[in-house]
């Protein structure tokens, strides 16, 4: 296992200590239970937006805590959803009296742990609403599965609903906007390599030198199928087509296009993928009104990428453009 870490056990604590040391102007970090809150939390009268999930997806979610995005993030162990204690503590820490929105990625563990936290918070008289992201078209959305995974849309949703909350939108409206983003967003990812969970010490799956996994999630899970490696153009097509057909995105639509790296893929390759995606969308007369290119929702050091599209309207575009100031996303401030 080749990683810049001190020990598998200390990975999350050490990283959180690094965030605390690096960004005291933006966030405060608490331990046992572990959570990160924006430096000025709780913001009186503002809806608190919190998220959380397993670690290993950095900068998501801790890197998105700050003005205009998340009020708090709850990092679990690597690839393991956080526990209710964390979400309960974070919910209390950010409650400014206007209620708290839980942004939950659709994984059985995340959903159950957030559910328990919400029950406990409600019992303490805090108004909690939840939105569950489930944008991964690689998973059949049917009674035959736990439902689609929450992936790339989560990042974009946190930015957009964070801007709404920052602007004084109430809890019910924040929930509506969040659900709207999720309903208009779709994603799909692929891997060139597996990744190594520190506590495990070896790759989660083996991928021959000439093969790739299509339809992976963000936890080193094997994907839907394996194929021989193809060109960036073909791979982009394999990811974009199911996304486009699923919503579907139609001629004349305007979208936010997000090309995401899985952690081990350098930016030069992401721009090559973006170039192919731009060609495909142009061919379908779909306008990329906004874009985001980089490694924002990762799977440790996995090499690969994911594509996310969110159909934009004026409301969402305005919220996307609103100022944001977090360790990982910053503009207009």
């Amino acid at each position: 296992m080749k990683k810049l870490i001190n020990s598998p056990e200390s990975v999350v604590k050490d990283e959180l200590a690094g965030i605390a040391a690096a960004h005291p102007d933006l966030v405060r970090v608490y331990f046992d239970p572990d959570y990160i809150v924006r430096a000025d939390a709780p913001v009186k009268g503002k809806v608190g937006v919190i998220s959380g999930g397993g670690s290993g997806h950095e900068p998501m979610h801790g890197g998105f805590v700050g003005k205009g995005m998340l009020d708090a993030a709850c990092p679990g162990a690597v690839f393991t959803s956080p526990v209710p204690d964390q979400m309960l503590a974070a919910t209390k820490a950010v409650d400014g009296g206007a209620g708290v929105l839980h942004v939950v990625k659709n994984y059985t563990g995340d959903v159950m742990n957030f559910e328990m936290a919400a029950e406990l918070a409600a019992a303490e008289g805090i108004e909690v609403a939840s939105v569950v992201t489930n944008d991964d078209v690689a998973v059949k959305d049917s009674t035959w599965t736990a439902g689609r995974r929450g992936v790339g849309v989560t990042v974009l949703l946190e930015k957009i609903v964070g801007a709404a909350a920052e602007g004084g939108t109430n809890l019910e409206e924040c929930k509506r906007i969040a659900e709207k983003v999720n309903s208009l967003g779709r994603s799909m990812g692929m891997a060139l390599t597996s990744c190594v969970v520190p506590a495990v010490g070896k790759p989660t799956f083996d991928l021959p030198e000439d093969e790739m996994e299509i339809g992976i999630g963000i936890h080193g899970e094997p994907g839907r199928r394996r194929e021989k490696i193809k060109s960036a153009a073909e791979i982009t097509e394999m990811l974009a087509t199911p996304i486009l057909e699923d919503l579907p995105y139609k001629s004349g639509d305007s979208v936010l296009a997000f090309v995401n790296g899985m952690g081990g893929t350098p930016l030069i390759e992401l721009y090559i993928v973006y170039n192919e995606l731009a060609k495909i969308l142009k061919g379908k007369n779909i306008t990329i009104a906004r874009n985001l290119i980089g490694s924002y929702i990762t799977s440790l050091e996995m090499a690969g990428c994911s594509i996310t599209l969110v159909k934009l309207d004026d409301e969402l575009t305005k919220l996307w453009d609103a100022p944001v100031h977090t360790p990982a996303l910053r503009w207009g401030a």
Partner: protein
Amino acid sequence: MRITAEHVIRFIEGVAARIKLHRDELVALDSAIGDADHGINMDRGFSTVLEKLPTVADKDIGTILKTAGMTLVSTVGGASGPLYGTAFIRAGMALADRYELTPAEVVAALEAALEGIMARGKAQRGEKTMVDAIGPGIDVLKEAQANGEDFIVAMRRSVAAVEAGMKATIPMLATKGRASYLGERSIGHQDPGATSAFYIAQVLLETIESIQ
């Protein structure tokens, strides 16, 4: 047969040891159809439970089990945390204020635990989860109880049923949890949670057998 709080504590300690022993095997199973953390999650949780046990050693069985369950909820994470945590909490609620148990009470507590898991996980049998291992085990105990069968004999048959249920998850198509994302590719692999459930059942049997 007198099943005391001390036996319950020995049972929990035994589970912690057994899980640690099989940590890597549970990780390997979860690597195939999940995210390679089940063994780590369970080991982390039960190790913390071990630290907590002394603080409730003199308490009633209900308190001991509830404390274990709440500790699991607070430390395991993932899907198995709320599930096993709920199981121990429900069992503890069923045994509130008891310092000694009859076999019937044990069966009732195990039934409550299963109900807790199925409610929290919204899972039925046949979905390739821990429910497929635990369910058949409970069936055997209830039916044995109805026939007035000897408890230890029943427990042995029950654990055999749990093992069979665990093995039966291999050909199943997962429709709950992470494994369900794999669709057809989930077939042919044994479910990690069903496997940890089997180890827990094994320790329960050994604890019962060690009594008298």
